[in-house]
Every structure is written in C-alpha cells, then in structure tokens.
C-alpha cells in the first residue's frame, strides 16, 4: 500500500511484519488448529515492545500513538486474528484505561507488567442481558470499608482466564442507570473471582473467551478507576480506541484474504486457464482491493484524529463498520475463488473466513456503529441550521 509513512513507522511496520511472518505464522497455524492459547508469543511480543505501544516510557512502554498501534495490529491480524484481538484488548482497552483513569499507585503496579507482556490485560463489560445495551448491566459493586464487593457475572471476556489485570465495569448505584456504573481493575487472585464457562467459538480459536463469575468478590478500593459513577464515560471513551483496533484487525484479515485469493487463483487452472485470468475473477479482485484500501484509509484517519486529541467517535465507528463489512465480503469472495479446496483446512482462507465474522459483532455490533454514526451526522447537520 502506497501511503506516506515516516522512517520510524516504516521500521515499526517492517519489524512487526517480519515477526508476524517468521515467528507468529507457524505458531498460529498450530494454535488455531488445536484451539490452544499461544502464551509464549506474548512474551516475545512484549520484548519487542508490542504490548505497551501507547504506554509512556516511565511505565515501560514505548509511548507511541494509535496510528502506530494500527500499523502493528494490521500486520499481526493478517497472520493471526486471535493474537490480534488479544493484543488489541490489551493495548487499546486495558493499558489505556489504567493509564488514563488509574491512580499513580495503580499505574505503577500494573503498567510495567502489562507493557512487558508478562501480564495480559482483559476488559469485562458484557453480560448475558447486557450486550449492545451496556447500561442494562447488573454486576453489582457495593462499598464495604476499603473494599468493594462484586456480585454477578460477565460473559464473552477475551483473555479473561489468562489476564492478570481485568477492567471490570459494575453497578455501584442501582438507582442511576447510566451514571451508576463504575470501573475497576480486578486481579484474578481476588477472593470470590472464578472462571465459569469457556466458549467454543466459530473462529478466533487461539484466543480464549470466557465467563467470569464474581461471588462476593473482594476488590480493594484503590483499584477503582477514576471516581464512582464514571464507568459509562470511561467505557464510551475506551470504545473509540477499541473500535479502531478492531477496524485494524478487519483490515488485516481482509488484506490476508485478498492475498490468498490472488495467490491461489494465479496457480489454479481449469479449462486450461488460470482462474485469475477469467474476467469475473479480475473484477472481484478489483472490488476487493479497492474496499480494503478504503477500509484502511478510514482506519488511518480515525487513528490520526485520536492521536491529535480530537473527537473521533464517528470516524472510529465508520472505520469499524466499513472495515468489518469489508473483511466479511473479501473473505467470502476469496473463498469463492478457491473453489472446493477453500472449504478445507488445507488452506488459510478457511480460518480467515471464520475469524472475520466476529468483527461485525464485538466491540459494538454494526447496528450500534450505525446508531453512533447517524446520530453524529444528524447532530452535525443540526448545528448548521440557524437558531
């Protein structure tokens, strides 16, 4: 892709691309096939600085911005979306939350371990009755002395059973639907913390997705992020970064699928013709490639706005909406180009197809993204009307 990058950005991209292709790819094939979490890879990623991308140097990070993170996530996800989502949640959500809203004590305690990759991060918002409708959450957090007692459960938490620091959103004030939620950093060795169901998923099989059960789970009051009642604000602000991360994931998957489609169709011959030489294939390739570029540029744009400190909720939602849709259409077309063999595990496209689907579902469904976008567009329009 022809995009002006700085020397640093090119070097970052080269390191992560080389690492992804040489070190991650072989591990990914086996991990995804067996449904095993590749723990060792996160330590290596940590050593290279990829687990603390936006964390300041004083806490052991590299102090880079969202744009650099996007470059990194795209390359990682092109090889393994499971590693990609684990890294995305860890960097965009956990690290970010603790950095922005944790006390200095909490930051010092968690960020160095997270940045080095020794500790993994997770992010727990979703409940069985609270998916898109976040404020319907019922996990309760009751203040008792210098602790909060948590009761309830979270579901679909990536890395929940492997993380050393989990950002948990719980209701501290049952009366106030939106301002009654608070955010905490919870450690897995807290009394009353246990892992429940471990999901068997269509894709992202080298990442874990679990239920976390809180039964009179005791969390130190120091672990409160921000102040009581700030939970919703934190969640929404975090989502911008999270969505950009998933958009980058979708772009990576889409690019990988496009490459697989082109590669395969150049080699496969039927009727004495390479599949790639049929015009119908060529038109598909043109549309796929254009969509991937557009998705990438939307993602870049949102990232740059975020790095400039500007509001980017609409742009992040647009990137996530479009990139996730693109990933799904591109994997579909690329699989079609493979014909029957694309349906077997012999080829990478089969995994890319399964992995792509979730990008339209998590970190805000496409329906939610549309709500965010349309609301922003209409408000922008209304601001242009005379009083």
């Amino acid at each position, binding site marked *: 892709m022809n995009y002006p990058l700085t*020397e*640093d950005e090119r070097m970052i991209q*080269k*390191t992560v691309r080389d690492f992804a292709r040489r070190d991650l790819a072989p591990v990914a094939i086996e991990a995804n096939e067996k449904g095993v979490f590749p723990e060792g890879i996160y330590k290596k990623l940590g050593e*290279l*600085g990829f687990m603390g*991308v936006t964390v300041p140097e004083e806490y052991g990070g*590299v102090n880079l911005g969202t744009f650099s993170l996007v470059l990194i996530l795209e390359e990682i996800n092109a090889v393994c979306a499971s590693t990609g989502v684990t890294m995305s949640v860890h960097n965009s959500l956990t690290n970010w939350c603790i950095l922005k809203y944790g006390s200095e004590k909490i930051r010092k305690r968690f960020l160095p371990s997270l940045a080095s990759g020794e500790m993994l991060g997770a992010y727990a918002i979703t409940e069985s009755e609270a998916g898109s409708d976040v404020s319907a959450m019922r996990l309760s957090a009751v203040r008792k002395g210098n602790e909060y007692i948590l009761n309830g459960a979270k579901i679909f938490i990536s890395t929940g059973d492997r993380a050393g620091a989990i950002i948990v959103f719980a209701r501290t004030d049952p009366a106030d639907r939106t301002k009654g939620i608070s955010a905490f950093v919870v450690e897995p060795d807290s009394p009353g913390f246990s892992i429940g169901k471990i999901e068997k998923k269509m894709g992202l099989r080298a990442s874990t997705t679990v239920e976390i059960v809180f039964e009179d789970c005791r969390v130190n009051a120091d672990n409160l992020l921000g102040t009581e009642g700030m939970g919703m604000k934190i969640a929404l602000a975090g989502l911008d970064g999270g969505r950009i991360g998933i958009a980058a994931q979708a772009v990576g998957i889409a690019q990988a699928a496009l490459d697989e489609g082109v590669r395969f169709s150049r080699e496969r011959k039927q009727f004495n013709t390479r599949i790639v030489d049929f015009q119908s294939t060529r038109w598909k390739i043109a549309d796929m490639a254009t969509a991937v570029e557009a998705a990438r540029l939307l993602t870049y744009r949102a990232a740059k706005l975020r790095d400039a400190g500007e509001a980017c909720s609409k742009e992040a939602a647009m990137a996530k909406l479009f990139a996730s849709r693109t990933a799904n259409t591109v994997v579909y077309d690329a699989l079609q180009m493979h014909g029957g063999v694309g349906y077997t595990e012999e080829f990478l496209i089969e995994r890319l197809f399964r992995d792509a689907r979730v990008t339209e579902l998590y970190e805000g469904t496409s329906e939610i993204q549309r709500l965010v976008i349309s609301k922003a567009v209409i408000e922008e329009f209304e601001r242009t009307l005379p009083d």
Partner: protein
Amino acid sequence: MKILALLKRVPDTEAKILINQEGTGIKDEGIKYVINTYDEYAVEEGLRLKEKMGAASTVTVVCVGPEEATELIRTALAMGADDAVHVCDKALERPDPFVIAAVMAKAIKAEGFDIIFCGKQAIDDDMGQVQSILAEMLDIPQVNVATAFEIAADAKRATVRRRVEGGDEKVETSLPAIISCEKGLNDPRYASLPGIMKAKKKEIRKKTLADLGFSESPGEARSTILRWLPPAKSSGCTMVKAEEMRDAAKELVRLLREEAKVV
C-alpha cells in the same frame, strides 16, 4: 572494545530482478532495499560481543551507500548498535570492490577499531572481495565464512569456525581482525519498538569523500561490464525418458549436475 559492523544496502532477496531496456543494469522500479542479509549476521554478532564484553564496548556501523541507506543504518542502530559512519558521495554510485575497500579503510582508520564484522558477500554483486581487500589494506588477518565465533578471555584473540567444503575449520586469530559472517552464525534480533525509539537519538556521522581526505577519486574502475544477461529461461518440464530406467536415472543425474547445477 570498539566493534565495527559493515553494512551494505542491497535489493531484497525476493525482488524481481529484470534487466533494464538499455541493458546496462537492472530495473530499479518497485525494488525494495534492505540490509544485506549476511551483514545482519555481522551486526548481530557485533551486538552479542558487545553484550559479552560489557559497558565499555561499542558497536559502530560503517556503511558506504547512497542517501537512502540512512534508514537501514537506523535499523541497525535500532537493533542496538551505538552509532554509525555513513560515507555518502555522488562519486560512489557504481563503485568496485577496491574503491569501496579504499574508502572504508580511510573511514575505519579514522574511527579506530578492535574487530570488524561483515557479511561474507553482498547479495547483489555476490563478489565477496571487499572484506579481504580491506583486510590487506588495514594489514590485519581475516577469517571468512564464519559459522561460530568466540572471543578469548584476554580479548586479544578469537576462535572462529569457518565453513569449507566437507566440513568446518577452526581458526585462531589475533585481533584486530576482520570476520565475515555466514548464515547460521546467529539469529539476528528484530529492531524492537524501544530500540527504534532510541535509535532516533543515536549519531550517524555522515562523510563525503572530501571529509575522509580524498582530494581526488579513490580509484578508477578496474573492470567494465560488457553486457547483462537474463538467466536461462525454463520452458516447462523436461521429461527424462530412456529404454532402460537406469539410463533415465543416469541422464537425470547428469542434468541435475551439469544443467541445473544443484548437485
């Protein structure tokens, strides 16, 4: 210890090499340039030696190359090298090994050194001469095609394994010396993110030929390339047939040895 690592900017091994229309060289468009693969082993070995010897040791990268080589030098700095010398001059566009060696010798003498690592050859011209010519110019011993390296306790000697036909030789050399590196010597580290950030502050000493003290050209070309030729084109599969299967096997062996030259 002052450790030097020599670096050359070359086209990527995956690059599609096509001869240009005029027949004077290869087509430049679309070619990605990287650090010569064998020089990566050199940088890595230099870094390992530095780690072994301790804080007082430094690794300096020396590169004779165009402006665009800066990014590659920066990558070596991101791997952990301390600083660099970059000799960049318009007069050095298509230099031959003697010119490169002469220029490097001047730059290196000015730097001072205890040991020099470099790649066994550059993957563009595949000449593999610069290191030996340089060794002669600097009047130091050389050990080529190193597959293992170990410094002696007194840091005045080193033991090097070098690859020859049918096995390895163990060579003991006094230092300073120049060691050219072969694949398998080590596994070059990645330029980590922290390394990339630190590299921004590291010094690259840029020198022109004049800066090095060359009042005139460091040497004229000692050879002329008459023509460039593409490799022999493959035209589908050669089916090897014969009355007796043994003769077919014999013919296949002959083709593999004499035509394909892979055995």
